[in-house]
């Protein structure tokens, strides 16, 4: 479900959506001790990841939430999170073609 709107407004045909908490399915590669998302499915769309541009971790008690900043092969931008206790993935932020 989308909880926020475009902000501040559509620009150059792109818009950003903040605060999404949509469940997604992710194909992940584990390499050199790190997780690397390869592609994910959001609603009925499959997004192929061209580049992981950043990653960071947030601690909620003993639980670790892994975040990834991603560029899709069409240059859309996504942030996704992996909840290591629940073993679930969520989409949290999108910047995509309108």
């Amino acid at each position: 479900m989308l909880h926020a709107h475009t902000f501040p407004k559509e620009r150059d045909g792109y818009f950003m959506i903040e605060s999404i908490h949509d469940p997604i399915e992710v194909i992940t590669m584990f390499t050199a001790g790190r997780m690397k998302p390869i592609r994910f499915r959001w609603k009925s769309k499959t997004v192929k990841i061209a580049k992981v541009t950043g990653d960071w971790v947030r601690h909620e008690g003993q639980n670790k939430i892994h975040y990834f900043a991603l560029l899709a092969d069409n240059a859309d931008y996504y942030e996704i999170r992996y909840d290591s206790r629940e073993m679930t993935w969520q989409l949290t932020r999108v910047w995509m073609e309108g």
Partner: protein
Amino acid sequence: MDAFFASVEEKMNPRLAGHPLAVGGDLKRRGVVSSANYEARKFGVRAGMPNAEALRLCPDLTVVEGNPQKYVHVSLQILEVLKDFTPIVEPFSIDEAFLDLTGAPRLLQGTARSKGAGAGAGVGPRAPEDLLDAAIPVARAIQRAIHRRTDLTATIGIGPNKYIAKMASGVEKPRGLTVLTQERYRRHFWSLDVKELWGIGEKTRVALEKLGITTVGQLAHFPKEFLTYHFGLNGDRMRDAALGEDDGEVVPYYKGVPVKSMGHEFTLSQDVDSRERIVAHLLRLSDQVGRRLRQDGYLGRIVSVKLRDSKFRTTIRQRALPYLMNDESLIYKTSSALLDENWDGRPLRLIGVSVSGLVHSGNAEQPSLFDTDERRRKMIEAVDSLRDRFGDAALVRAGAIK
């Protein structure tokens, strides 16, 4: 680091690069800008400005909600890079650090060893000019290493002490590298307005102006006794700053810089004049402050409350308690009493709570209140233990949900 939060967002989402960008607080509430890129700064967008004002100045501005964990992660990567150059790194904020390069191997390789001399980006005791200049290739190497590791740019100031190094870092941005000896510092800053000095805000500038001091040079030459009479200990510090004198050591990260206060503040989504809602926020903020004090092993004695009204008038009031504590109930009780004594019912846009006069729990000479209230201590330990395991949102005070 140059426009740190904004640069991290640009690096992760390259589509943002080249356009005016600000990182702000919660976009659904009325946050303030915490970082603006250089394209946005051309329009007058500055850190500390409300998002709405920034958008008025720059209608094409993109405001991205800030994400502290993201920036801390990059900040730690940068700290790792800096440690390759010297172990004497003092993180000063999430995007600033002082390095004592006096003994840095790369510096010593490039110069004749000079015992006791210091040079570098925020260095130790006074150093000859040639040693400061010898730090330039090291500083360039640091900039390159940071860029390689994070894709971000850094500005470096080199000086014989921390204050001059900090001031030098503001001379040229972004990607700047400025070397200032004490003499060059005085030549550069003495003709400038006192507000250019790090640590002098608008209120102090006005107070200095009343004494006839408007430039850094005038401050440097003003009799010390007069400054101390008017500003107390700060008078001394201001004069030292104007002279470019600072004997503060670079405190390495592994020693830890003593924490003076801990606090949280909150910008409300709309102005609030309901006491019930304001005290609910005070309760939540007190809860966060108490938890942080305990997590980091501190006790404090002075509770402060910060109130900012819809016209941006800020009131800070504090009260010293007769005992050390880290109990949110006492923080809340004191902060709500301060609210009742100092709030006239005007709508508020920001509320803050902090505790100062901190000592490490292990170093406390007087007993804390917990020592005399075993039942309450056990209860708080149980709550902390649940939150340690399941996160802070696992238990929330009913009174904080309004």
